[in-house]
């Protein structure tokens, strides 16, 4: 070989150096890989697994909400969706089980579409042209269709519930049920409180996929069927709820009130049979107007709000006084119209005074002076002992979100004035459910029960086996007063209905015991003029109550707001429905003093016989006629006389009009201004008023025969108990 240039020593030395440099670099590289693949590996692997793993949620069917008799109040739609898992389909196709074409042919007629439409969907690809992992074939199809597709038993085809919540009764029980949000999650009411039971556990497809959500091979993927939500069985009776809501709706219009609410409770078990507030909303379309307006509408006034109910709280003071032996029925209380406490004179609602009263009478009259005296006898420690044990200022623990606890002044701040006013029910805020629980305690012989809305939670698994997840048994919280005290209280409260301020709730033979309360509303920390809350708490029958009913009307029309003439008759209309529905028979033993409804005879003279007949029928009076003719010439007794229901009126018939214009002045006391005016007008009397509120006295004695157009002066008092 002819080499022009030999390889020099320098060259050789430098090549060795070059080789060494390369080896050093390679050692660094090996070190780097060792670090990445051994030291860093666990962390990187975790991140990589996170990247590969995909969870596809399969929504679970939300549980139903049923009333106590199993009637559905909230349902998860009967709609279903059909999904196709491409991997399983392709596998089946590969194994020669079935082709996509055959599948489309079977599915299409059930969905009511053409075969090609289904086939196109099955062959749908991502925008990149790659096949999809799951394809939604149909949404919100009928259950029948879904079942038909299920029966085909096709590989990779999954029929599952589609999310839609139905409230078949619209507004009924909306404040109890609440509603769900767009994702089907409970947002308000029991839907929210029991969401974890209702929601169920979504099923899932878990597997490793590539960035286009295609499942990776040689990895374990699993399909977990969704666990359906449990059904909630309420203590609510759909029918009772309906009666209550119907009555409230009517009351709302009749008394031109802002809101009206009621609770029906079983005092023995604490089960709420009905609870409603009007106005309410339709949970099928819960969002009306702005979000604030909607959420305000979703509030359950009986649980989420507290208010001053006024005189209904006198039952606590009275019960305390009986239990503490501070009072006997025969004790006398003199009401002069006001009472001096410390250096302040506090008026009774009846400024002219109730005079001398027994203990039951101060409840019947709702006499503030009498209760100030009772408060004095008890002292604040004993009174507060009962305020606390009856649960004022504390949550009842009802199974409902955001329960209010009411406002009870701290005992340290209670001076003689506060003691006096609180004793007759002023200055204490309660929630509807709190007060219903107080009533239930008296109804249940002094044993306080935990109020609740849910009776049990049941679950039906995919095999149709039903099991009870949770059952709510009646829970006695404590003995607040003795059974004897409770019984005594009920007797007195029964007399309040039969003889006292709640006469308009009286139903013969049913022994309703109750107490009314009318309170000025507190707005911005002050008592607001012309804004009242009229409440009536009651139980029936007094001897062994089966039902507790609390009715509360928020801001009734100030011209007729007295609870005795708003909340009490409203309660009566509810009771009438309930007694029929629950087959509660009236007590006809007549052992007790029979209370007979009085009716004021209207002017019938000058009416035709037919007209007079129907008028009398309406007010439940019988009649007999005397003489011949078609026109009522005279009548006995005279118009304005108060007669018993079902008693007989004699109508003297003639053919001409009588010019005898004598009428009898009726008893206007305890009537509202409006009622007085209407009655007076029907009789042809004139009235002049002094003061405002309900009639407490009149210048012409009831029963006096006067000429028509005579003016009767009537003194009204604010029944601001």
């Amino acid at each position, binding site marked *: 070989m002819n080499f022009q240039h030999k390889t020099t020593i320098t060259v050789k030395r430098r090549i060795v150096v070059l080789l060494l440099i390369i080896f050093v670099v390679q050692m660094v590289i090996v070190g780097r*890989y060792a670090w990445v693949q051994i030291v860093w590996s666990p962390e990187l692997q975790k991140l990589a697994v996170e990247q590969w793993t995909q969870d596809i949620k399969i929504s679970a069917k939300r549980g139903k909400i049923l009333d106590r008799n199993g009637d559905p109040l909230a349902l998860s739609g009967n709609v279903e969706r059909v999904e196709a898992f491409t991997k399983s389909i392709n596998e089946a196709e590969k194994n020669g089980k079935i082709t996509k074409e055959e599948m489309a042919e079977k599915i299409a007629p059930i969905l009511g579409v053409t075969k090609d439409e289904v086939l196109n969907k099955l062959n749908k690809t991502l925008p990149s042209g790659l096949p999809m992992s799951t394809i939604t074939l149909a949404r919100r199809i009928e259950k029948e269709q879904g079942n038909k597709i299920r029966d085909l038993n096709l590989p990779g085809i999954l029929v599952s519930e589609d999310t839609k919540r139905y409230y078949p009764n619209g507004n009924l029980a909306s404040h109890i049920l609440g509603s769900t949000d767009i994702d089907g999650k409970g947002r308000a009411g029991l839907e929210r409180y029991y969401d974890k039971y209702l929601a169920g556990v979504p099923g899932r497809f878990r597997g490793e996929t590539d960035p286009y959500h295609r499942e990776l091979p040689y990895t374990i993927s699993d399909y977990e069927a969704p666990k359906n939500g449990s059904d909630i069985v309420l203590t609510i009776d759909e029918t009772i709820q309906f009666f209550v809501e119907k009555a409230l709706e009517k009351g709302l219009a009749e008394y031109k009130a802002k809101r009206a609410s009621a609770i029906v409770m079983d005092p023995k078990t604490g089960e709420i049979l009905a609870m409603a507030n009007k106005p309410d909303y339709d949970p099928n379309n819960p969002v009306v107007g702005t979000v604030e307006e909607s959420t305000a509408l979703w509030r359950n006034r009986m649980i989420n709000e507290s208010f001053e109910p006024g005189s209904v709280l006198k039952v606590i003071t009275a019960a305390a006084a009986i239990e503490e032996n501070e009072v006997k029925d025969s004790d006398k209380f003199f009401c002069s119209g006001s009472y001096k406490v410390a250096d302040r004179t506090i008026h009774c609602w009846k400024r002219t005074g109730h005079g001398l009263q027994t203990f039951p009478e101060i409840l019947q009259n709702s006499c503030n002076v009498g209760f100030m005296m009772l408060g004095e006898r008890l002292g604040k420690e004993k009174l507060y002992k009962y305020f606390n044990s009856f649960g004022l200022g504390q949550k009842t623990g009802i199974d409902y979100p955001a329960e209010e606890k009411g406002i009870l002044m701290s005992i340290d701040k209670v001076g003689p004035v506060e003691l006096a006013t609180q004793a007759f029910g002023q200055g204490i805020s309660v929630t509807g459910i709190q007060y219903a629980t107080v009533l239930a305690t008296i109804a249940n012989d002094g044993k306080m029960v935990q109020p609740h809305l849910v009776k049990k939670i049941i679950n039906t698994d995919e095999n149709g086996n039903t099991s009870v997840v949770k059952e709510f048994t009646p829970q006695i919280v404590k003995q607040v007063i003795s059974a004897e005290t409770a019984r005594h209280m009920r007797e007195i409260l029964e007399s309040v209905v039969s003889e006292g301020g709640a006469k308009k709730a009286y139903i013969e033979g049913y022994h309703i015991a109750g107490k009314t309360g009318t309170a000025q509303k507190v707005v911005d920390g002050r008592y607001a003029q012309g804004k009242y809350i009229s409440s009536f708490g009651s139980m029936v029958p007094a001897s062994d109550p089966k039902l507790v009913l609390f009715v509360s009307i928020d801001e009734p029309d100030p011209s007729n707001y007295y609870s005795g003439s708003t909340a009490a008759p409203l309660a009566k209309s509810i009771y009438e429905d309930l007694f029929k529905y629950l087959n509660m028979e009236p007590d006809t033993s007549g052992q007790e003093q029979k209370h007979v409804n009085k009716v004021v005879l209207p002017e019938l003279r000058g009416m035709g016989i037919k007209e007079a007949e129907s008028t009398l029928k309406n007010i439940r009076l019988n009649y007999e006629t005397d003489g011949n003719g078609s026109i009522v010439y005279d009548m006995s007794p005279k118009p304005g006389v108060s007669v018993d229901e079902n008693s007989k009126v004699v109508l003297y018939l003639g053919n001409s009009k009588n010019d005898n214009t004598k009428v009898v002045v009726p008893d206007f006391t305890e009537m509202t201004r409006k009622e007085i005016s209407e009655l007076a007008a029907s009789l042809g009397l004139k009235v002049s008023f002094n003061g405002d509120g309900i009639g407490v006295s009149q210048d012409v004695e009831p029963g006096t025969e006067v000429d028509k157009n005579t003016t009767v002066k009537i003194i009204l008092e604010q029944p601001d108990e």
Partner: protein
Amino acid sequence: MNKKRGPVDFPLFITILILLAIGINMVFSASMVEDYYKHNNTMYHLIRQLVWSGFGLFAMIVMANVDYFKLKNKKLIFFGMAATIVLLVVVLFMPPLNGARRWIGVGGLGIQPSEIAKLMLIIYLSDNISRKGEKIKSFTYGVLPVLFISGIFAALIILEPNMSTTMIILATAFALLFAGGVPLKYLTGLLMVGLLGAVVLIAIAPYRLQRVTAFLNPWSDPLGDGYQAIQSLYALGSGGFFGVKLGQSRQKFHYIPEAQNDFIFAIIGEELGFIGVLIIILLFAFLIWRGMKIALSCKDKFGSLLATGITTLIAVQSSINFLVVSSFMPVTGVTLPLISYGGSSLVFTMASLGVLLNISRHTIRNGVE
């Protein structure tokens, strides 16, 4: 002139074949998923890699039988250099692919002029430096012309733009100047200038800077500049020490796009683990050692430098690929010689190795004098 030739360096030959075989296997494993979706044929790249390997083997065998000193032909070098420069200019007018003009021809059937440039420059520099003898120690006469030619190549390639090949060419040229006996003071100076140049290049082209920052913290932009680095690290990390077994990579499921190319070593790390990585790096180390041994055993300076240049080229290119895959260097598009899928580049790499094998037939060990 003694025409007698010895046998080729057998350990080197076997190493090349082993690496080529590993490459074919891994190209198949890495490409099958995308091929299935894109071409509905899992063997799309496998078949092509086999065909290119055939061409490569042919080129290697041809070059192993053409005595390397025949390359030292003035006309051949002149026309070769001229043709290379023409191709490097022509490529600049080709339609860009992924933002760079690197290919002449269509798709897989094209060639990259820069691949030819690598080999041509090594031949040219080996000839030039060996021809100058002691005069190489002069800066103006020895170093400057060499630098000028290398500079033209580098400049044309960087215009494509192809930063990585530019780096490889400059590194190889530098190694040849070093081996060729250029005084260290000049080399140190060159290194300084080179570093400065790199800083300037990064400063003027923002995408290079982004790649640098992506390398420093790939998680700062996990779906953008950091994506490849992160996905590559995920692959290596999931592979761990023993790997997830051949064929079972998950990262090749579209997480690492075109896994058979620049990031094939990540798939190797995932499937074969650190063990597999170590074996392949050791195989490259062995190949480089054999190459340098051939360079040392060659009595002719041209042959020595040629062997050094070819070996250094393999060393630099494989090292850059290893560093990029392990996120120890900014991401640049460098294939792993003999392993990555590659049409023309595989053929040129194997042709270079053929030259190296031929040099081994003329070493002292083979009793050639």
